[in-house]
C-alpha cells in the first residue's frame, strides 16, 4: 500500500523522541504535522484539515497526551475520537412520507454511481423494509442510461418507469409519481442525469424536478475517490437543492475516502449509505468509526470482524482459539482456516483490512497469490494424517514423497513447513495480544 497509516507514522516520529520519558509541546507539534499529512493524503479538504488539527492539538497539548505514558497511542486515540465525533452517528434511516409514495431523488456528478446506487437503494428498501419501490429513469442525456436502469430493474425484478429520452425529466418525474400512485408503490426513486455543479441550466432543471416531485429525500451520490473538490460539489448541490443525505460510492476500492470527512465537516449533511461493490446488495449503512480508522489508514478491523462473523463458523472459531493458545494447531486446521479465510473474499482484500498488515513479520511472507494457495492445499493434502498433526515427523524421505504427491518441489514443501511454524509462533503472540483488549463479543481472527 502506498500510504502508511497514521499509527505507523506516529510510531516513527516517536522513535526519534524515545528515551525522553515524556514528550513536550514541540514533540506534539511534530506529531500534529504527521496528523496533518495523513489527513491530506487521505484527500480531506485542506481547510477542514487545518481546523481539525488545531482542535486536536489543543486537546493533545492539554494534559491528556503530555502526561500519558504512551503519547503516540494517545494522539491516535484523540484523533480517532475527534474524527468519529465529527462524522456523526449512524443515520441510515430513509424518510417515509405519510402520503405515499415517498419520493427519493438521486443527484450527483457524472460517473459517481447514481444509477447503480438507485438499484441498490431499491433493493435495500424491498429486502430490509419490505417496500415496493418504483424506479424512474430521468437521465435523458447520457446515451443508454435508461437502458442501464432498465437492466438493473430486470436484475432486481423491479419495475422501471421510463418515457424515452425525448421527454423532459420534469415530466418524467411527474408521470412516474402518478404511475406509482396508480400501481400502489410506496417509494419512487428518481435517477437523474449526472451534471456538473456549475452547470446552471442543468442545476435549474433539477430544481424544477424537485419542485414538481416534492421529494422526501434528496440523496447526493459522491464518489469516495473524490479529492479536494468534494467540498465544492457538496456545497453547490446542497445550496441549489437542499440535500438530505449523502451516499458514498466505490468505497470497496483502496481510497482512504477523506471526502467523507470534508463533506460532513463543511455541509453538516449526514452520510447515510456507502457503496461497497458492483453487486446489488453491496450497500451498507455508514459507520463513522470505521471511516475514521480508514481515513487514518489504520485498517478496517470492524468490517473485517463483521465479515468474518457472517462467514466463519462460530464453533470452529472458538475451537481454533483454544488451539492457538495451547499451540496444538495442525496442518488440518490450517487447511480449514484457509478455506474459511477464502470465504471472506479475495485474500489481499482481507489483508488490506488488517491494520499494519504489510508490516507484520509473519504476514509479509504469506503469499497473496491465489494460485499459491492451490499449491499449499495440494501439499497439505499430500501429507498423511499423522504428518498433518505432527509436522515434526516429516523427514527428508517424507518430504520427497509429499513433493511428488503434490507435484511441487521439496523446496516448496520446506517453505510451507517453515511458514507454518512461523505462523504458529505468531499466533501465540497474537492470542496473547488479543486477550488484552476484548473486541466485539471476544471474537478472534480464526486465521491468525
Amino acid at each position: 500500500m502506498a500510504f502508511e497509516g497514521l499509527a505507523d507514522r506516529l510510531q516513527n516520529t516517536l522513535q526519534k523522541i524515545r528515551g525522553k520519558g515524556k514528550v513536550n509541546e514541540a514533540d506534539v507539534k511534530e506529531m500534529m504535522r504527521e496528523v496533518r499529512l495523513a489527513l491530506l493524503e487521505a484527500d480531506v479538504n485542506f481547510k477542514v484539515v487545518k481546523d481539525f488539527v488545531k482542535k486536536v492539538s489543543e486537546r493533545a497539548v492539554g494534559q491528556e497526551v503530555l502526561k500519558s505514558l504512551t503519547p503516540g497511542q494517545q494522539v491516535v486515540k484523540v484523533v480517532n475520537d475527534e474524527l468519529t465525533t465529527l462524522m456523526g452517528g449512524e443515520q441510515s434511516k430513509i424518510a417515509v412520507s405519510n402520503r405515499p409514495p415517498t419520493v427519493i431523488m438521486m443527484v450527483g456528478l457524472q460517473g459517481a454511481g447514481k444509477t447503480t446506487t438507485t438499484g441498490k437503494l431499491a433493493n435495500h428498501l424491498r429486502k430490509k423494509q419490505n417496500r415496493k419501490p418504483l424506479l424512474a429513469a430521468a437521465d435523458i442525456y447520457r446515451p443508454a442510461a435508461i437502458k442501464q436502469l432498465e437492466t438493473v430493474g430486470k436484475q432486481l425484478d423491479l419495475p422501471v418507469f421510463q418515457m424515452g429520452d425525448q421527454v423532459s425529466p420534469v415530466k418524467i418525474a411527474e408521470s412516474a409519481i402518478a404511475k406509482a400512485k396508480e400501481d400502489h408503490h410506496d417509494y419512487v426513486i428518481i435517477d437523474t442525469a449526472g451534471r456538473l455543479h456549475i452547470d446552471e441550466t442543468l442545476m435549474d432543471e433539477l430544481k424544477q424536478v424537485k419542485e414538481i416531485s416534492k421529494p422526501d429525500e434528496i440523496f447526493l451520490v459522491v464518489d469516495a475517490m473524490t479529492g479536494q473538490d468534494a467540498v465544492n460539489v457538496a456545497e453547490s448541490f446542497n445550496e441549489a437543492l437542499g440535500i438530505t443525505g449523502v451516499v458514498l460510492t466505490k468505497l470497496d476500492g483502496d481510497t482512504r475516502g477523506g471526502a467523507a470527512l470534508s463533506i460532513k465537516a463543511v455541509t453538516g449533511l449526514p452520510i447515510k449509505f456507502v457503496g461497497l461493490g458492483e453487486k446489488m446488495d453491496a450497500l451498507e449503512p455508514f459507520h463513522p468509526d470505521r471511516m475514521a480508522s480508514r481515513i487514518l489508514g489504520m485498517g478496517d478491523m470492524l468490517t473485517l470482524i463483521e465479515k468474518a462473523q457472517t462467514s466463519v463458523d462460530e464453533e470452529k472459531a472458538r475451537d481454533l482459539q483454544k488451539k492457538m493458545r495451547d499451540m496444538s494447531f495442525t496442518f488440518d486446521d490450517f487447511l480449514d482456516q484457509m478455506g474459511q479465510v477464502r470465504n471472506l473474499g479475495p485474500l489481499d482484500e482481507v489483508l488490506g483490512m488488517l491494520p499494519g498488515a504489510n508490516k507484520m513479520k509473519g504476514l509479509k511472507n504469506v503469499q497473496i497469490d491465489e494460485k499459491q494457495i492451490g499449491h499449499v492445499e495440494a501439499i497439505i493434502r499430500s501429507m498423511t494424517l499423522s504428518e498433518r498433526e505432527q509436522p515434526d515427523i516429516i523427514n527428508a524421505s517424507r518430504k520427497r514423497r509429499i513433493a511428488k504427491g503434490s507435484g511441487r518441489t521439496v523446496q516448496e514443501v520446506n517453505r510451507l513447513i517453515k511458514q507454518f511454524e512461523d505462523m504458529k509462533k505468531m499466533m501465540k503472540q497474537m492470542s496473547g495480544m488479543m486477550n488484552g483488549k476484548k473486541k466485539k463479543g471476544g471474537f478472534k481472527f480464526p486465521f491468525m
Partner: protein
Amino acid sequence: MSFLKRLKEKFSTQQSEESSEKFKSGLEKTRNSFSFKVNDLLKRFRKVDEEFFEELEEILIGADVGVHTVLDIIDQLKDVARTKNIQNPMELRSAITEKLAEMLQKEESDNKLNLQTDGMTVILFVGVNGVGKTTTIGKLAHQLKTDGKKVILAAGDTFRAGAIDQLEVWGERAGVDVIKHHEGADPAAVIYDSIQAAKSRKADVLLCDTAGRLQNKVNLMNELSKVKRVIEREIPGAPHEVLLVVDATTGQNAMNQAKTFGQSTDVTGLVLTKLDGTAKGGIVLAIRHELDIPVKFVGLGEKIDDLQEFDADQFVYGLFAGTEEE
C-alpha cells in the same frame, strides 16, 4: 522574457487561438480559483517567508496536486528563493509557473498519440468505474474519423448494464462500426473478434473499451491483463497505446490507479476527463512527477468535440492566464 509572455507569444503566432480559447474557457473555473489564489497570495505577502510557502503549499494541495509532490515543489522553490536571494513574492511568480510547466512537459513529443503510419493502431482504454471511458472513446472516434481514419470500436465492457448500448450510440454519432457480443460475455473474446473484424475490414484504428474496475480487485485486473495479452498475441507491437482514463475530480487515489493499472497493463498515457468542472486535476502533476506517465488528452465537456490533445504549455497557460493580465 518571462515564461508567460513566451507562452502567450507562442499561441498568438501558432494560430491555435481557437483551441486555446476552448482550453481557456474549459479551464475557466480552474483558472479563476487557482490563479486568483496565487495572485492574492503574491500580493498579500511582502516577504517570502515560511508563512508564504505554507500558504502556497495549501493552494497546491487544494488543487489535488498531492502532498509529496507539493512538498517537493515547495522545497525546490525555497532553494530558488535562497540561491537567488528573492525577497519579493512577485519575483517568485515566474519560478512557480516555470516549475509547474517543467514538471508537466519533460519530453516534447510524448503526449502525442502513437498512431501507426502503416498497419492498424490498437488503443486500449482502462480505468476505474465512472471516469468516462466510453464517452472518451466516442469523442476520440469522432476525431479520428474526421481526420479520415477508418475506426472500429470494440465493446469490451460486457459487465456494466447498458454499457454496450452506450458505446453503440457513440458509434452511431461518430459514424463508425461497433463490434459487440452480449452482456456478460468474455471481454477477451470480444476483443479477439474485434481484432479479426478490424483486420478484415482494414481499419486504421481499433479503440477497445473495457469495463470500469477498481484497481484493488485482483481478479478484474487479471482479466484486463488477459485482454491485453490477446491483443499482443494477435497483433505484434499492439496495443500501441494503453490509455488510463482519470476523472479530474479524483484525489490521491488517482496515483494508486496509475500505479496498479500501470503494473497490469503498462499504461502509456492518461486521459483527464471532466476538467470543465471546478476540479483542478492537479493530480496529473503528481502522476507525471512520480510515475512519469504523460497526459495525452483532456475532456472539457460533454459534446462530441470536447476532447482536446493535451499540451502542457496550454494547460499552464490556461491555469495562469489570469495572473498575467494585471
